[in-house]
């Protein structure tokens, strides 16, 4: 079998960080090849090298045995490889249609906008993406944007496609649709490299897998030869048990409640109450309104009707600081948007909500900030040079952990986390879920919004939303099948 793409002895350094230290990968023609590794292992860095966005400090890239084109020759790269990057490459001010056909809006010189919209609609239909081709990309939800990126990458007709964590922001049905596409592309002989922290997806869609650890290649094997626990061991360098949700009995006091909440176009008539020592899940398929509801609870959105009470305090609608003062911590949906300030350090990002506790008279003691940050880095296992590194330089998953650290740093009595494990590796996911459970064991109440059923297992009960309403309150002990059926509106 021919090796379609190969990277040899690649070294890439960013200042003092070595992102890749002699890493290699070889992908056979026609296979779907998984690349896995912990956050910060160097996966995305390899992607940028394989797609010609960055030059390796050492080593080489070969396509079908031929050396890769010059970095400046973007067209040659694009003929060889298409990619869904981990970081969004959507341009908010342009329409979906133009984003899909960026820099190839027309064959001829003059763009025919009507025809372009038609082509875009066709493409979106092919991939069953329910998005208006004429809408501004900036108005889309995170998930819709991700679908647009996927549709764009698949539409190039390249013989090699890289998908860097495409499913981190997708729900079940969308993931299924993506896999269907990927299978049919593979049947057409397209080679793919697939990156994900959902290892079951690796088993479902890939033929072979390469594991990176600490910037180096660890192993490459057919997935069939590599059982799940061995794979995890290869990634983490140690044997790791599957996460076991803990059981507990919730207390009596209600720490978070929403009454008669409604927001036009998103949800209506919601009553929700979370007790101390309880984790309440919010589930639902796309556009069910679960994120909108969670954002209302934390104050990111102002509901049209209803009130939110945090820890006994009626919070002014749309007032995040007030909610936080009342004891709330939260993880927003989009870490790039609301999660962190990229230029500021890990330490500062993680400690903003407790700034007032880091010193008196409005002062911040850098040493206390450092100490707190180091504690968070330790407990959440954030891979960073230290508290002073800007978050912009972290890998995706590690940035997510910083956002998580921010939510936990104030020992919140109420925790609202939205897709908290998006892009986080297996081991770190356990740490994050564990952190939620720890907080709850200390007496907090938590709301967990997630598209991932595995995350929802730590919930004491799951509220399932459908078309803006809570349709069912599912207690612990559900099976995947049951829950999905409710989410899809198949069962009332």
């Amino acid at each position, binding site marked *: 079998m021919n090796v379609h793409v190969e990277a040899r002895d690649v070294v890439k350094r960013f200042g003092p960080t070595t992102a890749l230290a002699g890493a290699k990968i070889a992908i056979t023609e026609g296979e779907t090849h998984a690349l896995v590794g912990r956050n910060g292992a160097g996966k995305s860095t390899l992607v940028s090298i394989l*797609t010609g*966005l960055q030059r390796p400090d050492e080593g080489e890239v070969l396509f079908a045995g031929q050396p890769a084109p010059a970095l*400046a020759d*973007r*067209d040659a*790269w*694009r003929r060889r490889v298409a*990619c869904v*990057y981990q*970081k*969004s*490459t*959507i*341009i*908010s*001010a*342009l*329409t979906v249609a*133009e984003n899909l056909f*960026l*820099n*190839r*809006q*027309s064959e001829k*010189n*003059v*763009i025919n*906008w009507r025809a372009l919209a038609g082509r875009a609609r066709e493409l979106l239909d092919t991939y069953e993406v*329910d998005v*208006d081709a*004429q*809408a*501004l990309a900036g108005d889309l939800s995170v998930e819709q944007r991700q679908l647009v990126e996927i549709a764009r990458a698949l539409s190039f007709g390249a013989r090699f496609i890289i998908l860097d964590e495409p499913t981190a922001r997708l729900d079940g049905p969308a993931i299924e649709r993506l896999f269907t596409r990927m299978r049919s592309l593979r049947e057409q002989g397209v080679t793919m490299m697939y990156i994900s922290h959902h290892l079951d997806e690796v088993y479902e869609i890939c033929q072979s897998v390469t594991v990176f650890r600490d910037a180096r290649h660890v192993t490459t094997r057919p997935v069939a030869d590599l059982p799940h626990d061995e794979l995890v061991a290869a990634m983490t360098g140690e044997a790791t048990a599957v996460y076991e949700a803990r059981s507990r009995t919730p207390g009596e006091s209600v720490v978070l409640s929403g009454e008669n909440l409604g927001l*036009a*176009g998103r949800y209506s008539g919601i009553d929700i109450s979370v007790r101390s020592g309880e984790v309440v899940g919010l589930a639902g398929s796309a*556009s069910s309104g679960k994120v909108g509801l969670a954002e209302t609870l934390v104050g990111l959105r102002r509901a049209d009707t209803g009130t939110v009470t945090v820890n006994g305090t009626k919070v002014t609608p749309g007032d995040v600081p007030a909610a936080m003062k009342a004891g709330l911590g939260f993880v927003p949906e989009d870490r790039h948007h609301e999660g962190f300030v990229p230029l500021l350090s890990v330490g500062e990002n993680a400690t903003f909500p407790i700034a007032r506790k880091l010193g008196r008279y409005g002062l911040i003691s850098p040493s206390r900030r450092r100490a707190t940050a180091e504690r968070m880095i330790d407990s959440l296992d954030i891979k960073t040079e230290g508290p002073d590194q800007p978050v912009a330089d972290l890998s995706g998953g590690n940035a997510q952990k910083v956002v998580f650290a921010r939510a936990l740093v104030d020992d919140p009595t109420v925790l609202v986390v939205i897709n908290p494990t998006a892009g986080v590796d297996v081991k770190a996911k356990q740490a994050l879920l564990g952190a939620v459970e720890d907080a709850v064991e200390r007496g907090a109440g938590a709301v967990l919004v997630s598209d991932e059923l595995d995350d929802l297992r730590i919930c004491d009960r799951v509220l399932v939303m459908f*078309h*803006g309403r809570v349709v069912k309150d599912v207690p612990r002990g559900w099976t995947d099948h049951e829950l999905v059926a409710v989410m899809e509106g198949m069962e009332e």
Partner: protein
Amino acid sequence: MTTLTAPAPRVRLARFRDLTLVPVIVILLIVGAVLDPTFLTAGNLTNVLQQQAAISLLVLAEAMILIAGKFDLSLESTVGTAPAIAVMLCVPVAAGGFGIGLPGALVIPLALLIGAAIGAFNGFLIIRFQLSAFIVTLAMLIIVHGFLQGPSEGKTLFQLPDSILYLGSALWLGLPAAIWIAGALFAAGIFGLGYLRLGRSLYAIGGNMDAARAAGIRVDRVLYGVFILGGTLAALAGILETGRLGAIGNNQGVGWIFMVFAAAVIGGVSMDGGKGTILGALTGVLVIGLVQNILTLIGVSGFWQPVIYGAIILIALMISRIAGGKAQD
């Protein structure tokens, strides 16, 4: 859900966002007509257009540069310096020239070339050295103006080759040539940024440079092109202005850049890049031109004129904000 069912009105709104200043223009036309009978005459409106022709080319240039996510303050200095140096290369020493004595027919191409060279140098510093565009072009604003003031020793150039006076003073089909030229260039700009791949790539670059690069757009090359085109347009503006004024004073173009930005931003072009249209910028120029004209006609006291002028800009800004419906940046 609701948003999904109604995509059509949205699209239409987006298209009309270029035209949020049209109501302002209509109001100004009505107000002007009420305040002064001369205002709505063909002669006066022609004057307004002619007076704005040169500065509008700067707005065109700046709009493109802003859309591509960059900045050029030095355009205003090019307006004086490019034609002045070109003239000095051609006229005799007695008329303030260098004594090189190139043929007078070359003066327009020379001026355009000098403008292009200034743009290219800006691009070089900003793109190659990754320096801040704002501050590079601020320094260049000072330097380029110095290259007018230095060789001319502060004197106005009065004796100009005829060719450089022609465009700014000729009439074509009964209208000043400058209006035709500006009109044609704006049409080209609207078309180019609306319908050409190259033009669209400015939006991509200004919107997300990394994404543009990943999409295969030759970002650096396009940006060089934009700066060079900007400098050339500024030189052309200088040529038109020279023809209109009949001489090149040391202050030609000085102080224009603020009005240029005001026109572009009122017209919906974002200072953050990636947003706005050439048509919008054009409406911004018209608003500014009409306001100035009306203030001159009604003869507001010179001392208070700036206050009224600034207030009208603020009001136009608010109207365009309300009609556009989006926060500005």
